[in-house]
């Protein structure tokens, strides 16, 4: 079972993760975007940690909802609505729970990714965070079908996200700012796919 504390540990870890990777994500974004992805996420997840500290949530849904509303309010750009929508849908499906089973975790990630797809209308190989999320979701579903633990599921998800992230390098961007570059977007790793990989890696680290 995944506890509220583990969810909180994950959300708080993301504050550190994006603070540490701020320059790296922003560098990636400056190659094919507007050089703010790291800054936006660092600001957003620092606000999430602060909000969670100020008003400790009662259950997992409340924690995810606080994350969602805070991200929507503080991140802006493309990543704000995308990650915000991810956490909002994740919150909805975990309503009232203080712990999540492996099946619940699968449902939560499915809902989150579904929201994100709906919001951004991106497809696989558009060179966006979707290219990390979709393989990760499939890895989770496969691992769960094979009876894996939550920790194992997240390890598989991280590996799949990492591969998806690397696979964005040769792609031509078709969504987001990078798409304005056309062929010149080739050869650069997508910043959003990278931040998604980091998010899953933090889950794997904190959920074992």
């Amino acid at each position, binding site marked *: 079972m995944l506890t509220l504390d583990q969810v909180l540990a994950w959300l708080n870890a993301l504050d550190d993760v994006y603070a540490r990777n701020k320059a790296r994500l922003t560098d990636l974004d400056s190659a094919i975007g*507007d050089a703010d992805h790291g800054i*936006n996420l660092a600001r957003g997840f620092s606000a999430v940690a602060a909000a969670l500290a100020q008003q400790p949530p009662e259950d997992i849904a409340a924690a995810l909802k606080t994350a969602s509303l805070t991200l*929507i309010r503080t991140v802006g750009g493309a990543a704000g609505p995308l990650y915000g929508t991810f956490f909002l849908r994740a919150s909805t499906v975990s309503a009232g729970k203080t712990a999540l089973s492996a099946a619940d975790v699968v449902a939560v990630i499915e809902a989150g990714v579904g929201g994100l797809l709906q919001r951004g209308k991106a497809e696989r190989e558009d060179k966006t965070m979707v290219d990390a999320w979709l393989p990760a979701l499939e890895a989770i579903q496969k691992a769960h079908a094979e009876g894996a633990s939550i920790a194992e599921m997240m390890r598989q998800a991280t590996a799949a996200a990492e591969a998806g992230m690397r696979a964005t390098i040769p792609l031509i961007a078709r969504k987001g700012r990078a798409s304005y570059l056309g062929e010149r977007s080739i050869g650069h790793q997508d910043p959003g796919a990278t931040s998604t990989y980091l998010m899953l890696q933090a889950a794997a680290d904190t959920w074992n």
Partner: protein
Amino acid sequence: MKKLINKPEDVVRESLLGMAAAHEGLMKVHFDPHFVVRADAPLQGKVGIISGGGSGHEPMHAGFVGRGMLDAACPGDIFTSPTPDQMEAASKAVNGGAGVLHIVKNYTGDVMNFDMAAEICQAEGIDVEAVIVDDDVAVKDSLYTTGRRGVGTTVLMEKICGAAAERGDSLAKVAGYAKACREAGRSMGMALTSCTVPSVGRPTFELGVDEIEVGIGIHGEPGRERMKMKSAREIVAAMAEAVIEDLPFQRGDQSIVMVNGMGGSPLIELYILFNELAEIARNRGITIARTLVGNYITSLEMQGFSITMMKADEDMLALWDAPVLTAGLRWGA
């Protein structure tokens, strides 16, 4: 990085405070969430017009808040789109019962954040129409991509829709003008130098001493093509060709034309560029009925310019000529 600022993280807030102090009686500034609203809002029975986007493009948008143009502007961080809570608060502040028009530039972030705001506003009973500007001919459009970026046409749209709303047109009519502007306006930009986002502290891209970036966006996004420096005549000819052929503008068309500085180019150069563009228009039989030459939609201190041409009928020209009283655009009032 040398900038006339205090701390990078205070740039937007302090600049808004400065605007409020400089233009008392014209606008008010709200913080947390940030939005700028005309001093006399809401006007009962008048359609409210809101726009917003990342900061760093001044005077757009806050400089266009006032009589006959925007009712409110939502400034995001530098080059980062604002968030739905800003647009929601601004929409509420300007809603006089006749609904609100959201003018959105076509960037994934702006579109998604305005989308969320519109959902929230509608859920709270405010009638919202959103129109997306996507006039940048430098970006090839296709069904599979994000589409074109929104640039200079935004300024013209805000003026024309603002005049329509001011005279009492309905939300449907005002949104109709916005769509007409969207159909009729085309732009393209270029840069001689990069800009530097204060929180990043170094130039977004590097250009050689004899290089230019043609087809650049307004956020320092790399452009369509990097090339060797050329004369004003050659640069304007290439950009005008792209703009004119795209609509396409035709012999006998009337137009509103903007030669817009990116923030760091001197006015003396903008007039040289306008001179080139005027000659091209003359040769092609396109009438330049109204003009703007100056810094209207900028990229911080970037050196460069953009041209915007909008085909305009008498009705649109009359709306263009209507009084406007804002910090960044003012006539007849």
